[in-house]
């Protein structure tokens, strides 16, 4: 039976690899996900073949967890996707923590039980990484779902507190690893569980909402590494392979996100970006005249435009405006304009957030363009319509060396012939950085809720 199980694990590892490979191409992605799910099914069934298993707790757990997961996944609206990905990610981390803890508990309950050095260390790592993943993801979830303030939480000596916490954690780990069966090791192990959970909270609260794409991909990578550690705990190859694949892919996504913001990972994790003037500068105060425009005037400009580019940001998700945006896009296209949607890699709150929303609104795939493809031709665009995006179109990133976002690649909407910015107010974006775009000669501000503004434009077109 052992051989059958191992062979099944190999098959499931192969399916994960194929699935992941297919997930990275649009044409094969749906099938890739199904193949990876098949791999998971095989791994689960194979595991159930182990002798001496007590199935009642297993089935109870799978029914409860599977029910919660499936119902949540079916009911979640596309706009809430970032926080749910964070939530699911967190539960995976917690599972790895518990696997490590359960194994330690088994050792404690076995008279004369022995534990090799590698599993002993792996248990500690599963608890540490799993714990940080769990509470870190929960904080990310709460920030994204706006259950708590998305602004970075900073206080004096924050790095020192985190550093001390980490040192204490490692000391607990060392004592426990030295002799897991000792009387002192047990309370210290429980302390390590607790501190790992606390550490996850403390390292995530200083990170602002706009940096969430980076944090989510990083936590995703952690959850893979936690699973990997759990694999070393129980000497299970499929856990190790699948966990490392996720760990590696998460790190790659993280670095893509960092590059798109022209910042290092350390800067994202520790700078408290977006806390306002206290932590970082906000750049030169922009001067000039702000020119507002009414929906009616905006309609006349759009009606005459032969090329229009929509630039969506997090504000579009908040206003749930993706459907009316697509409607306006269709009307413009019917009117003879060339319509495109330019998506910045870090627009929104998770990697690819805007693409998901626009896909939900049935925006044709061909109309989506990436930043690097639109920037070279942006000067020939008649109207750029910025919907709830701010930092990703901030020309200070190009022009103002004192701006904290200086050097970040942006979509150069200010170079288009004209630019409409849909915004509730002149308030600066999430990062608290001044945006000179609002004061540019060819910029017109269309104040109000994004969805209401776009709807007004749609009505203008329909009544014309």
């Amino acid at each position, binding site marked *: 039976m052992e051989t059958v199980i191992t062979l099944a694990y190999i098959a499931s590892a192969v399916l994960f690899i194929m699935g992941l490979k297919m997930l990275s191409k649009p044409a094969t992605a749906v099938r890739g996900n199904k193949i990876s799910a098949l791999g998971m099914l095989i791994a689960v069934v194979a595991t159930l073949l182990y002798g001496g298993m007590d199935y009642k707790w297993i089935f109870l757990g799978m029914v409860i967890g599977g029910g919660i997961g499936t119902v949540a996944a079916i009911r979640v609206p596309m706009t809430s996707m970032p926080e749910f990905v964070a939530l699911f990610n967190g539960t995976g981390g917690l599972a790895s923590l518990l696997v490590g803890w359960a194994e330690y508990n088994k050792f404690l309950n076995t008279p004369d039980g022995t534990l090799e050095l590698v599993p002993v260390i792996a248990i500690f790592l599963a608890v540490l990484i799993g714990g940080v993943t769990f509470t870190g993801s929960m904080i990310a979830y709460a920030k994204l779902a706006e259950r708590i303030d998305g602004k970075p939480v900073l206080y004096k000596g924050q790095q020192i507190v985190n550093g001390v916490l980490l040192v204490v954690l490692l000391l607990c780990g060392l004592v426990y690893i030295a002799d897991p069966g000792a009387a002192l090791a047990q309370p210290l192990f429980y302390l390590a569980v607790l501190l790992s959970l606390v550490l996850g909270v403390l390292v995530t609260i200083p990170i602002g909402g706009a940096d969430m794409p980076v944090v989510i*991909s990083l936590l995703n990578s952690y959850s893979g590494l936690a699973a990997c550690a759990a694999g070393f705990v129980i000497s299970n190859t499929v856990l190790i392979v699948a966990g490392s*694949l996720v760990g*590696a892919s998460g790190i790659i996504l993280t670095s893509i996100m960092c590059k798109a913001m022209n910042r290092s990972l350390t800067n994202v994790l520790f700078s408290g970006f977006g806390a306002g003037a206290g932590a970082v500068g906000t750049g030169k105060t922009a001067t000039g005249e702000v020119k507002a425009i009414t929906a009616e005037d905006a309609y006349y400009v759009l009606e005459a435009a032969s090329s229009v580019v929509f630039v969506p940001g997090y504000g579009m998700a908040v206003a749930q405006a993706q459907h009316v945006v697509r409607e306006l896009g269709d009307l413009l296209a019917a009117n003879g304009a060339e319509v495109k949607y330019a*998506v910045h890699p870090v627009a929104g709150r998770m990697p*690819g957030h805007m693409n998901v929303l626009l896909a939900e609104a049935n925006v044709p*795939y061909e109309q989506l363009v990436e930043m690097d493809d639109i920037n070279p031709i942006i000067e020939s665009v008649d109207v750029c319509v910025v919907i709830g995006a701010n930092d990703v179109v901030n020309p200070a990133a190009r022009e103002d060396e004192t701006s904290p976002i200086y050097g970040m690649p942006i979509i150069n909407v200010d170079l288009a012939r004209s630019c409409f910015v849909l915004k509730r107010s002149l308030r600066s974006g999430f990062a608290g950085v001044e945006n000179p775009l609002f004061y540019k000669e060819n910029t017109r501000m269309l104040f109000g809720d994004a969805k209401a503004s776009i709807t007004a434009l749609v009505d203008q077109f329909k009544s014309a």
Partner: protein
Amino acid sequence: MDMLLLLFTFVLAIFLGFELISKVPSQLHTPLMSGSNAISGISIVGALLAAGLSADSVLGIVLGLVAVICASINVFGGYVVTDRMLSMFKSKEGGN
């Protein structure tokens, strides 16, 4: 199993992971992340073993049960959500 062999597997798998995902178009970032997130629910294997083989202590049962619940949420939720997102992309390309 030999620990060094496990370590060997680990290192190779990490490199394989880097090779697999080096170039991904940005419209697939979310599904890829969510799909790989579902794969990290593989800790369900450890959870099943913990829940099925620790009937001798109450704490063991509780840990195992909660681990299975959490891992199942990750697995089921992760795959279903990814499938929902990817299906939306699919329809745009005329059914693949």
